[in-house]
Every structure is written in C-alpha cells, then in structure tokens.
C-alpha cells in the first residue's frame, strides 16, 4: 500500500462515522445508511488516488446520500417523501460534535446487549472491519457479521435525531477499554480514541473522567506484563516503563473535569489511578488519599468490586486486620474476593490462610493469565510454610 493510500485509509476511518451520523441525523434508516456509506467508501478508494476531493467529507456525504436514494428507488417508492431530507444543504462543521454523540448513543442503545453494543460501536463509529472485530472477540467473522446486523436491526426501529443517554455510552466505552481484547487492533486505544471524540463533542465532566481514567491506566501498559505475557501486579511493576506523557495528559484532563465540580464515578476512578501513577515507588503511594477517593466512589456506585478494592486501601492505611474487617461486608462469592483476602492475610502474617485464598482465587478465575499469576502466589507461600 502506498503512503497516500494508507493516509487516505486513516482519513476514511475518521470520516466514516461522521458521514454515517449525518445521514442518520437526517432521518435515514440506520442499516441502509451504513450500507450506503460502505458503498461510498468503495467509490472513494476507486477515485481518490486520481482525484482527491477538496472536501472529502462533503464528497462522501454526497455520494453516500446518492447511494441511499438509489437504494430507496430500487426498493420501493414507499419512502419517497423522506428523501427530501437527504437533499437538504450540507451540514456546517458545528454539527459534527452533535453527530458523534448521536451516533454513539444509538450504537450503545440500552436495548442492545453489551456484546452487541460493543460490536456495533466498533463497526459504525470506530470504522473497524467486521473481520477485525471478530478477531478481537475470537469468534468467526460470520458470527460477528450476524451480531452486527442484528444490532442494527434492533436500533433501526425508531427515527433517531436526539442523542440518548451518555451514561450508556460511557458504560460501553469502558467495557471496550477494560475487556482486555486481543487481536491486530488495540481496542484499548480504540476506546481512548472514541472517548476523545465524545469528550470533544460534549461538556460532561464524567466523559473527561472516563477519558482520564483510560489514559492513566493505559500509561502502564508496558509494565503490566512480562516479556512472555505474564501478569505483573501494580506493586511489582517497573515504573520507569510507565508512559509519563500519557500520565500528564490524563492528569490534566482529570483536573479540568474536577474543576467543574460535578463529581461522578469515572472521575473518582481516574483520581485513584492518578494517585497510583504519581507514586515513584509502590511504598510512596498516597494510600490515605486513595482511601478517601474510594469513600467518594461508594457514593456513586453500588458495584461491590469498589468495596473489595476499598478494603485493599483500608489495609494499606489502617493495617491488614482493618482491611480484613472491611472485607466482611463483601459477598465472598465475588470474583477477586479471594485474591484480595489472600493479599491482606499475607500482609497480616497468616501465610496459610493467604495460600488457601490464593489457591481458591486461582480455581475461580476466568482468565488463564490471572489463574497462573494466582497459582504462583499460592505456590510461593506454600513453599515458604
């Protein structure tokens, strides 16, 4: 692929959701609009190498709109009256921001299952191919194609010209970031890219909070695994591998969000990540501040995992026995309950109990990497005892 073609590929990836959003906002059926945009992209790949348009976005909107009308004509005349909307004047640049939110909230519609919302978001807004998404999910491409087309049908029902709930969008973006998907495309980076777009389009401190949280975690990516892919826990990470520029960016975004004084769970989570990132060594971690952020966080979410993680902070501030006491209110069946209990027991000097909890945590883990990590902890303690 030549450089020119490669860069027009990047441009197309950026423009795809914008063009799609314009058509949808003008009232086009979502699935039909997506098909039309795909056809317009093919035209672009064919024609742009010879004659690059001055305004690629307007070009794509024009061509996609024409494809849409062709499709309507071929299909039936039933919707002829709706066509007027596609022939309205081109949108101005200010509408781009609204379009991003509109499209994202459509793809993350609460009627979709998380898996479907993620797939549709990556396809329609992220501009990834079905094959790339299938690879990330480790499912056959035909399965992913079905999942996406079902999702499109689900959200195609109503005309959609007002942005929906931004919380649902944040939940889906968080999942894309957090699920540890593998494959050719780094979905954590894709989540960051999409959240940046959303942050540019909205004035919601929680969107910035989520973006900051992603950056503050993603900055540690090189230290999170050994060269052969095994998990390195936060306390053992080589902090010189952390991406300090990304941390600075995350902190700056977080400060901007906090200054608007509308607290929420993502800002609190970002603050916790920032405090970890700020410590030059694990020993220098400002646990009292982290604990106060966990207290803040419990005001915004009833997620029991927060209580679990708070117990770790309590253990660091008031000692492991206090941490274990904080654990008693948590359901012992939660994922990672035993890992946290093991960690606190080890610090309290209960080697045997710690080993037992690590072994149980390994048994209950749903990830091979995590299981191996926990098994090694149990073996280390058993060999000592």
């Amino acid at each position: 692929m030549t450089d020119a073609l490669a860069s027009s590929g990047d441009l197309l990836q950026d423009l795809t959701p914008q063009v799609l959003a314009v058509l949808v906002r003008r009232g086009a059926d979502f699935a039909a609009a997506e098909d039309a945009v795909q056809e317009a992209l093919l035209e672009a790949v064919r024609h742009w190498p010879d004659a690059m348009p001055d305004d690629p976005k307007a070009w794509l909107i024009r061509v996609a709109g024409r494809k849409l009308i062709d499709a309507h004509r071929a299909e039936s005349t039933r919707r002829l009256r709706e066509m007027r909307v596609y022939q309205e004047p081109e949108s101005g640049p200010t509408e781009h921001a609204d379009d991003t939110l509109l499209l994202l909230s459509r793809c993350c519609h609460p009627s979709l299952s998380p898996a479907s919302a993620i797939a549709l978001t990556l396809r329609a807004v992220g501009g990834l191919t079905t094959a790339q998404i299938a690879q990330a999910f480790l499912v056959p491409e035909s399965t992913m194609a079905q999942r996406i087309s079902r999702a499109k049908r689900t959200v195609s029902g109503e005309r959609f010209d007002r942005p929906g709930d931004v919380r649902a969008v944040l939940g889906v973006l968080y999942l894309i970031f957090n699920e540890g998907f593998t494959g050719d495309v780094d979905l954590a980076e894709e989540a960051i890219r999409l959240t940046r777009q959303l942050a540019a389009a909205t004035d919601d401190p929680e969107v910035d909070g989520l973006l900051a949280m992603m950056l503050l975690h993603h900055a540690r990516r090189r230290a999170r695994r050994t060269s052969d892919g095994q998990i390195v826990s936060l306390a053992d990470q080589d902090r010189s591998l952390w991406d300090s520029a990304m941390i600075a960016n995350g902190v700056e975004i977080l400060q901007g969000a906090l200054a608007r004084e509308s607290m929420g769970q993502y800002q609190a989570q970002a603050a916790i990540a920032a405090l970890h990132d700020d410590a030059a060594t694990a020993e220098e971690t400002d646990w009292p501040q982290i604990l106060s952020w966990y207290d803040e966080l419990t005001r915004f979410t009833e997620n029991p995992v927060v209580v679990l993680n708070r117990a770790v902070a309590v253990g660091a501030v008031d000692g492991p026995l206090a941490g274990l006491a904080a654990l008693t209110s948590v359901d012992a069946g939660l994922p990672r309950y035993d890992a946290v209990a093991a960690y606190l027991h080890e610090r309290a000097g209960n080697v045997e109990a710690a080993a037992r909890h690590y072994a149980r945590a390994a048994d209950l883990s749903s990830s091979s990497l995590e299981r191996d990590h926990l098994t090694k902890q149990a073996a280390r303690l058993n060999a000592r005892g």
Partner: protein
Amino acid sequence: MAKYLLLKHYRSDHDIAAQPIPPMDQWQPEDVEAHIAFMQQINEDLRASGEFVDAQGLSPEGTFVRYDGEGRPPVTDGPFAETKDLIAGWWIVDVDSVERAYEIAAHGSSAPGPGGKPINEWIEVRQIMGAPATVTE
C-alpha cells in the same frame, strides 16, 4: 460476555441408562433424519443469533497416550470397549450469560431420539478462560 464449551456426554451410568437408547443405526430412518435436522437447526440458530463459535462431533473411539521417557515411544492405551462416559462432540458459544449457555445446552439435550422422544443426554457446560480485566484497582 463469555465463551462456554457445551460438551455432549453419553453417560451410561446415569438413570437414563435405565432405558438405554439404542445406537442411531438402529433407529427408524425418519427418526435419524429428525435428529440430524434438529442438530443442524441448532447450529443455524446460533449463527443467526451471533453466538456461534464452533461445533464439532468426535469419532467415538479414542486412545490414551502419554510420554514414557526420553527416546522411548509414547505409551498408548485403549480404545476401551466399555466406557462409561463417551464425549460425542461439542458446541462453543459466545453468550451474554451463563444462563443463556444453560438454555442452549438444555435445548440441545432435548434433541429427538427414537419415536421423536427427547434423548435427554447430559451436556456439560464449562466456561472458557478469557483475558484478564485491565482495571483492577
């Protein structure tokens, strides 16, 4: 969002063995047809719902193999004529919940046998390991 392996067991030690189901080659041809059509329909439905990952059948006879030291041929054992637990095949599905995996397994277990009666074979549901979450603090 997790993947599950749905293992099709034929367990001769279970109470369904009280009314043993004869091998398929002794069923009425239309019952065999109905059974195969049912299984194909499950695969088609899973593809259409975007949950299909894999489906395979296994040949019934297997051999146990193990390492026997440097430079020595592997030790083999079997096939065993009288096995209590025969694994006939599997589905792998990618679903939103373990309840959905159970639902698919139970439907698979209702596949028609002789006379169109459900064969009620046991299907073991096991979660397939995934990637660890990124945010753990």
